[in-house]
């Protein structure tokens, strides 16, 4: 049993080379993860800046910050950039790329070069979208509804659609890599039911990426083609505008699960580690991920109850939409049961996990209103819907992403972040988030439509609350950005397993060497074997590192990594 940390003078994946070329031509999944981390952070701030301007505009019922043209472009930028260039690649691109090979005991992804190509496609798509913003931006909203987008809009829709199209291929390649890697690269002894739930949820995500993204690509490509005069969706040219909505939501509803399934995976890791417990009902949680991936493809019509689709189709979509609440509910209950009789260590990642469970539950139960057709008719295209999906996508995915970034930061960078500041900003983000989005449920039920920059005066009080919350949320996001950067140089050096966690990724050094493990690990335990992790330490304070005592892996010294 030689699990002592690898000696620090050996090069890790970061120190092995520092030339620009070594970064831009890297095929190391960990370096690609860092490339994604940098680029999605950039796009996060672009999309966030658009949100700041929108919230400022909405502070009063009049147009005093931007005019109608600018406002329509702002919400389009906000949606397109944050969905396709932040949320979709966030957890898979950064944490998934970094952790999947390490968690299954592999030395890299199955297709390292495709992995790099996926980042380049993402970047090219991003540059095209930035270009479209610079040449005037699109004003169709991220939903690109035809025939407005394909015929009537007098804005840079074509360029933006091409950008989204290209970025879609990045997502497809990522999904392909995840699936093949999980099938073929698992270390000896890493059976399917020993896989961490992070892997299961990324596997389910990858299925959606591969099966759904091509349909989005087709839909936006057809919009681009129709802008060149070929009739597809415009009824004046013999087309059907509703067809676009079917194609768009066939991807874009499952895309919600592309964004939130990886978050489920992160939360399963955080809750087990900081409750010092095995996950409650492993098979149920894993199966729920797959059930969500499958059912997610059958509910897109719930976005179209008022679109003019058949009333009977709506009834079927409504029923299936209710069923998808069941696996999501199972997850929440299993996480709660995992905490039961655990030993809850309230670190920053665990705070984010608690925040996630609470906010995701709010987002989930408000989804029931939208699945019930008659209620949806009233709140459709109002701020109620805006609040609902921000609770899922920001309250859910962004919380989990930040929790995951804090949890694995020591592994990725070899440095600890400052816990006091991190706790403070987690609380700030939680408060700011709720103040921003909760009033939107109310103002939406009152009838305030989305995509209006001028609105009746009686809605102003709730809008002021929302804008005030957004300012707290915005400042809250700047803190982690600042102290995480600071920690890169000044943070205390991280041990290989600062959280005393059971996952395979904690058995290698922080940061890991280029090929992840000095010797191919042999797995003899299921994931979350926290009964085997020492509990002798006395908190508060960090638990004592106990590497020598964890028989999770058994690495025979003769088996050398080639």
């Amino acid at each position, binding site marked *: 049993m030689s699990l002592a940390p690898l000696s620090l003078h050996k090069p890790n994946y970061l120190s092995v080379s520092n030339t620009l070329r070594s970064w831009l031509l890297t095929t190391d999944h960990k370096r690609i993860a860092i490339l994604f981390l940098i680029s999605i952070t950039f796009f996060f701030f672009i999309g966030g800046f658009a949100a700041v301007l929108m919230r400022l505009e909405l*502070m*009063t019922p009049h147009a005093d910050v931007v005019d109608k043209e600018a406002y*329509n472009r702002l919400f389009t930028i906000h949606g397109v950039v944050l969905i396709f260039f932040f949320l979709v690649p966030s957890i898979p691109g950064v944490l998934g790329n970094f952790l999947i090979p390490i968690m299954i005991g592999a030395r890299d992804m199955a297709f390292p070069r495709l992995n790099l190509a996926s980042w380049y496609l993402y970047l090219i798509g991003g540059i095209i979208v930035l270009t479209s913003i610079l040449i005037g931006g699109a*004003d169709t909203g991220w939903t690109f509804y035809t025939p*407005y987008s394909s015929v*009537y*809009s007098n804005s840079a829709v074509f360029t933006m659609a091409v950008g989204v199209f290209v970025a879609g291929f990045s997502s497809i390649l990522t999904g392909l890599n995840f699936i093949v890697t999980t099938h073929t690269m698992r270390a000896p002894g890493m059976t399917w039911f020993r896989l961490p739930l992070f892997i299961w949820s990324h596997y389910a995500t990858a299925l959606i990426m591969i099966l759904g993204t091509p349909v989005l690509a087709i839909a936006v490509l057809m919009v681009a083609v129709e802008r060149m005069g070929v009739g597809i969706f415009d009824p*004046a040219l013999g087309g*059907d*505008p509703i067809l676009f909505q079917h194609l768009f939501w066939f991807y874009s509803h499952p895309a919600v699960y592309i964004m939130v399934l990886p978050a489920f995976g992160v939360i399963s890791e955080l809750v087990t580690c900081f409750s*010092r*417990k*095995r996950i409650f*009902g492993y098979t149920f949680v894993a199966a729920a991920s797959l059930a969500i991936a499958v059912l997610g493809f059958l509910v897109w019509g719930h976005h179209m109850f*008022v*679109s003019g689709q058949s009333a009977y189709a709506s*009834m079927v979509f*409504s*029923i299936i939409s209710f*069923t998808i609440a*069941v696996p999501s*509910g*199972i997850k929440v209950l299993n996480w*709660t*049961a995992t*905490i*039961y*009789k655990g*030993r*809850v*260590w*309230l670190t920053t990642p665990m705070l984010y996990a*608690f925040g996630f469970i*609470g906010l995701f*539950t709010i987002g989930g139960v408000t989804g*029931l209103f939208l*699945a*019930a*057709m*008659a*209620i949806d*008719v*009233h709140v*459709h*295209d*109002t701020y109620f819907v805006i609040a609902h999906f921000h609770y899922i996508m920001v309250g859910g995915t962004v919380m989990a992403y930040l929790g995951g970034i804090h949890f694995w930061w020591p592994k990725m960078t070899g440095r600890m972040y400052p*816990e006091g500041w991190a706790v403070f900003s987690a609380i700030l983000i939680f408060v700011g988030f709720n103040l921003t989005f909760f009033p939107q449920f109310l*103002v939406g039920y*009152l009838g305030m*439509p989305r*995509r*209006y920059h*001028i609105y009746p005066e009686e809605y*102003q*009080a709730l809008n*002021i609350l929302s804008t*005030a919350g957004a*300012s707290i949320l915005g400042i809250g996001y700047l803190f982690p950005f600042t102290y995480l950067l600071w920690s890169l140089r000044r943070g205390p050096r991280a041990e290989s397993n600062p959280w005393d966690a059971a996952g395979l990724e904690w058995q290698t050094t922080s940061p890991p060497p280029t090929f992840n493990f000095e010797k191919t690990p042999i797995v003899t335990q299921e994931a979350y074997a926290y009964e085997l992790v020492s*509990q002798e330490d*006395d908190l508060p304070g960090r638990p004592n590192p106990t590497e020598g005592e964890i028989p999770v892996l058994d690495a025979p010294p003769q088996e050398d990594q080639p």
Partner: protein
Amino acid sequence: MSLKRLLSRTLPLWAMLTAPTLAWAQTAPETFGRPTTVPVNVFDGSASTDTMFNFVTWLTLSVLVAVLITLVIFAVKYRYQPGRRSIFIHGNNALESVWTLIPTIILAVIAVLSQDSWSQMKNPPVNPPDEPIRVRIIAMQFKWFFQYPGPDGEFGRLDVTRMNIKSSDVKEQAGLDPTDPASADDIIVGQLVVPKDRTVIADMISIDVIHSFFLPNFRIKQDAVPGMTTRVWLRSNKTSAEVVGTNPNQPLATYTADGEEVVITDAKPFDIVCAELCGNGHYTMRGLLYVVSEQQYNQFLEIEYAAAAAGGEDDGYGY
């Protein structure tokens, strides 16, 4: 660092964050006194929608509160304490089945109830007490027009190629085909006028992009889609004056063939809101729905039909 110390150390920061909030609140003090209430529902066909909404609200609120309280209790009760260990539980199939089955049953109940309120909203009563009123809703960037079929009960044909947005005559704006005999007695107006307690069946078309016909007071929303006809039905159990009051300065008036102004009512209208992004003027696409008494409705139509028969130009707006 303890939370208390953390909060006290960062006091200036909290002050910094609340200051702008308070400043904003000062910019519109009257706003905070203004009552923001849910729009009164005047449509019997969506009464069950409100019942459902309240039911789902209470149900989900109790589930939510239960989950949140459990989380807080667990976080406190099972917090990291020296000497106390976590207890290992691998799962419990019976428990999993229970918390799969119970939500499934609850969801099935909501799903069934929502089918019922959906069909009430979608289907006008089979045997209405009297003949339903038929109107055609015409949506275009960025206004709503309403076509009444005239005494012959038939809608005249609309022809996109005849549309002339710059015309001062709404019939020409909407492209009503004068060669269609059914067109002769039709009127097209800029506000929807219907009587209280009568079933109205409205077929909806759009002549450019997708718009959405949203009546907050009726809990109704339906997209107007180019290339197809969609339908809503409505019936108001109150006049708009009873709900939103009156404004004598801006009454609903109409003009006889001789150009004489006749005031129908000083009621304020219900809002018609466009809920689907349709272009730069989307937010301006507000329509007016007057629900008036049967006599006022008949008077309105008589004058409009007489004016149409006289062949006068029609600006479509009563005021």
